[in-house]
Structures are given as structure tokens and as C-alpha cells.
């Protein structure tokens, strides 16, 4: 994906890219917390990049769908990925650690924020992580973890189980993790 703000650092010094690095933006979460971030990191979010380009970023950018705790996490991610000289390998390792300690609820907050802010790399990482956690888990485990009430009748459930019996083989017994 070739985008104008992704020039490899140190190759040819694009004065516009330099400016973005020094320019800071302020992001404001739904609960009123404000965060400073370099423009070069912020525009890794396509949504923020569009806002900056359309010049609606007069001072503070309000993000009414992202709470402060989640925004802080997202900013950590953006900063790492905009960091000068961070190798792909280093970023990959960072991504792995970034999501590995997150509870399911936090992963959900982050995936929603990444979806809203359109941060492709982060979206991929978190989606994959949520799917990993569901691996071999029972239907009941997923309901419990996601706090979902079933809206199927026992008969409907039994029918699905019968029809797709192969998908119920090898399911782990429920343990809290």
C-alpha cells in the first residue's frame, strides 16, 4: 500500500513528512480525556488522516466513539508503528505482545476503535486474536465470555448441532482463562 506518508525514513527526506513528525494533534476521547500525538502517527488511522486532510482538525479532534482507556492503547500502537527506525520484525513482536495481555472485553473495545478509526494493521491483529481465543471453545464459553444471551430455542440449537455435527468435534471442555 503506497501512501504518501509512508516514505521509508531516512531515504529521501520529504519536507512534508518531516513537518508531520514535528506537528502534533490533540485527540479527545468520549470521556473528555485529551492526548497529544504526532501527526505522522495519527494519520496511520485513515479516518484521522481524512479529517486532517479535510482540515476539520482545527486544534482538537473529538473521537466520541472511543473512551480514554481504549484511546490510550490505540495511541501506543500508533506511536510504535510511526517510530523512526522500528524494523518490521520489531513491530511484529510489539503487535504480538500488545494484544496478548488483553482481556476479551478490551479486545472488543480496541477492535471497535480500530474499525471506527480505520487502522488496518491493528484491526487485523485484534480480529485474529479474538478468533484465536475462540479456538475449540464451546458455544457456552463464547456466550459466557461475550455476555450473550442465546436467542435460540433448545430445539433450534439441537438442530444446528445435528446438522453440523462435525463442527462440534474436538471442542475443549470449558475452563476459565
Amino acid at each position: 500500500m503506497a501512501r504518501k506518508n509512508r516514505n521509508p525514513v531516512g531515504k529521501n527526506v520529504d519536507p512534508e513528512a518531516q513537518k508531520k513528525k514535528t506537528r502534533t494533534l490533540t485527540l479527545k476521547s468520549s470521556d473528555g480525556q485529551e492526548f497529544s500525538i504526532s501527526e505522522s502517527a495519527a494519520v496511520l488511522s485513515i479516518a484521522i488522516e481524512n479529517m486532517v486532510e479535510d482540515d476539520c482538525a482545527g486544534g482538537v479532534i473529538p473521537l466520541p466513539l472511543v473512551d480514554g482507556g481504549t484511546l490510550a492503547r490505540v495511541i501506543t500502537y500508533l506511536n510504535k508503528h510511526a517510530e523512526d527506525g522500528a524494523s518490521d520484525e520489531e513491530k511484529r513482536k510489539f503487535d504480538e505482545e500488545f494484544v496478548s495481555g488483553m482481556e476479551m472485553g478490551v479486545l472488543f473495545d480496541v477492535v471497535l476503535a480500530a474499525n471506527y478509526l480505520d487502522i488496518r494493521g491493528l484491526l487485523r491483529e485484534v480480529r485474529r486474536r479474538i478468533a484465536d481465543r475462540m479456538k475449540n471453545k464451546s458455544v457456552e464459553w463464547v456466550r459466557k465470555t461475550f455476555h450473550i444471551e442465546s436467542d435460540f430455542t433448545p430445539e433450534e440449537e439441537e438442530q444446528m448441532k445435528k446438522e453440523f455435527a462435525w463442527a462440534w468435534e474436538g471442542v475443549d471442555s470449558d475452563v476459565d482463562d
Partner: protein
Amino acid sequence: MAAGTRVESMPEDCLSHVLSFASPTDACRSSAVSAAFRDAADSDLVWENFLPSDYPEIISRSVSPVEFSSKKDLFRRLSFPEIVELVMVCWLEIHGRIDISMLSPNTSYGAYLIIQLLDRAFGLDTVLCEVSIEIGDHRMQRPIHLTRDKCRGEGSGVSRKGEEDVVRTRGDGWLEVELGEFYNNGREKEVKMWFRETKGVHLKGGLLVEGIELRPIE
């Protein structure tokens, strides 16, 4: 905010994207979680990921048209071929043919009929069955003896009595009957394969047939 309300507030395609990173079994099972999960888990966005990238070609090769209502349905059709149970017949003949251009040239292949003999199988070992394979002008055929103890003799892999090793247990409950071997020299068009027992006109039954498998051999 509880995770449950988050899931509800999640756009459907967001959940589908999550499930596209899961395995087909996990995705399929998750459709029993709730209606929202089912909508997300059944979407083409999820199942397209699980289909082989050349699936349109695979479908186009099918002798009978492959009809499917969704990508999930198609996945199921491609992954779980329907099994045929032979309940009772007096004339048994199974044959298959394949366009040889789908196989690698200058390679030897073995053709195998994948079957199971049910406990109530009968009449199948009274008379010798016959397997044959035909490619171009070459035709090879030989008799085989189908007995039930072969499906029990798991592990040994070789049929008893020193009979050629044409019926093998696969370890997954299925037996494979070697229909023959052939060499694809790249010049022929079609390979035909048969399994039949048409001499004894007595009744026979209790045979499950999954299909014919072709694979390269050393």
C-alpha cells in the same frame, strides 16, 4: 460497558471479519451462539476465506452442476462429499472418469475406491469383484476379493493370504480398494475406472461408497 453490549454494538461485518480468522469448525459452531453470531458466521465474507482460491474452476469441472445457496453451503459440498450407501442390488458397478489434463503430466497415479463394509454387509464376497482402469488404448483389470475381515484388520494394512495389496485400511475407518495405476504421459485425454461385480446375480448390499481418490505414486 459489558462485552455483551459491545458485541451487540459491533457492526455485523466486524464480527464476520473476526470469524474469518477462525477455523471453519470454529466459525460454523459459533453460529449457534446467537442470531447475531449466526448472521455473521454464515456470511460469504467468512466462508470465502475457507474456500480454495481456485474454487470456481473446481466447480466447473464437476460432471453434475454444483448448486449452492451460499459460500458456506458450497464449502460444505466441497468438503463433505455425500456418501452413498448401497442397500441392496444384484448388479454392482461403480465407474468414474476424469479429464487427464487436470493431473500432472509425466507422473504415475494410483486410483482408489474409498468404501466401508457395514456390519450387515452381505453377498459381496461370494464372487470375485473386478477392478479395471483404462487410459487411451491401455486397459488393466484384475479380480479382487472383498471381505469384511479386511476392514477389521486395522494397522496391518496388508491383506492376508499374500493376495496383492489391493485393499487397504486407511486408519480412519475407510477401506481403499486399488482400482489400478496409470502413467500420465500427457498425450491421453481421459482415464476411466471401474469397480464391478456383475457375474453373480445374487443380492448384495451393505456397502458405503465415498468416492474415488486419485493420487500420485512414487
